[in-house]
């Protein structure tokens, strides 16, 4: 299992932070991490530039193999991992936000799921995507097109 490439339009320092974040999540939480999806303005390549007074953040959705909406009892460890990645890349001009989701994804708004399926860039997946995403346009093909073996 390996990561898909980070979009080329992201600056080098932020790209390194995204890669570190996803790599550490995979390394430390491999048994529960199901997928990581880049979404939002960066995924659509509609981001505000880093020179902007408020540059766009990088939005990641990390899906975990639990039915607990708040991803307990792993939650604290997951955020510790995210902060460890952040500490290694304090020069990144964009902030990386990681939203946590349980595997049912039942509480997410349908429009958000539609947007995620349409615009999201799958950076990592282990096995099949959760049903709410698999039922929409398949992100999995995007990952396979990039040569990532599931």
């Amino acid at each position, binding site marked *: 299992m390996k990561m898909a490439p980070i979009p080329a339009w992201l600056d080098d320092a932020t790209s390194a932070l995204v890669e570190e974040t996803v790599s550490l999540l995979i390394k430390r939480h491999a048994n529960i991490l199901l997928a990581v999806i880049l979404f939002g303005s960066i995924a659509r390549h509609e981001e505000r530039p880093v020179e902007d007074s408020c540059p766009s953040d990088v939005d990641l959705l990390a899906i975990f193999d639990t039915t607990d909406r708040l991803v307990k009892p792993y939650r604290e460890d997951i955020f510790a991992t995210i902060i460890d990645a952040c500490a290694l890349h304090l020069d990144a001009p964009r902030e990386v936000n990681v*939203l946590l989701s349980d595997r049912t994804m039942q509480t997410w708004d349908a429009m958000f799921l539609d947007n995620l399926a349409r615009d999201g860039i799958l950076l990592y997946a282990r096995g099949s995507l959760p049903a709410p995403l698999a039922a929409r346009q398949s992100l999995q093909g995007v990952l396979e097109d990039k040569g990532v073996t599931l």
Partner: protein
Amino acid sequence: MKADAHRRHAESLERAIVLARPDPTTSVAIIENAWGAAYHWISYGCIRKYQQHRDKHQGLTAYLVGLGEQRLAQWWRNFEDVRQAGFYGNQAGESEVQEALDLLGRIRTWATT
């Protein structure tokens, strides 16, 4: 803003939370107020402990890590997740409210001790 002004803002937002708490339909408002109060407590604590603070929430995580406050950065990142999930339609129920209030309590304790 000076430290005392941040503290007053935080306390005012916390009073609003106490008033809203009995009404289960106010969960989003409670989380927003708790997040705002946490931001002001962080500013208050940073001024007290480091004689500096960040005057916007963007980039606050990296700023706190840069100060060596990794635990606080972790709580803040956690708070951002609870809040931002609401932007994308994720439900804000009692467990999310409780998580937000727990984080606010930890952040307030950090700021005032």
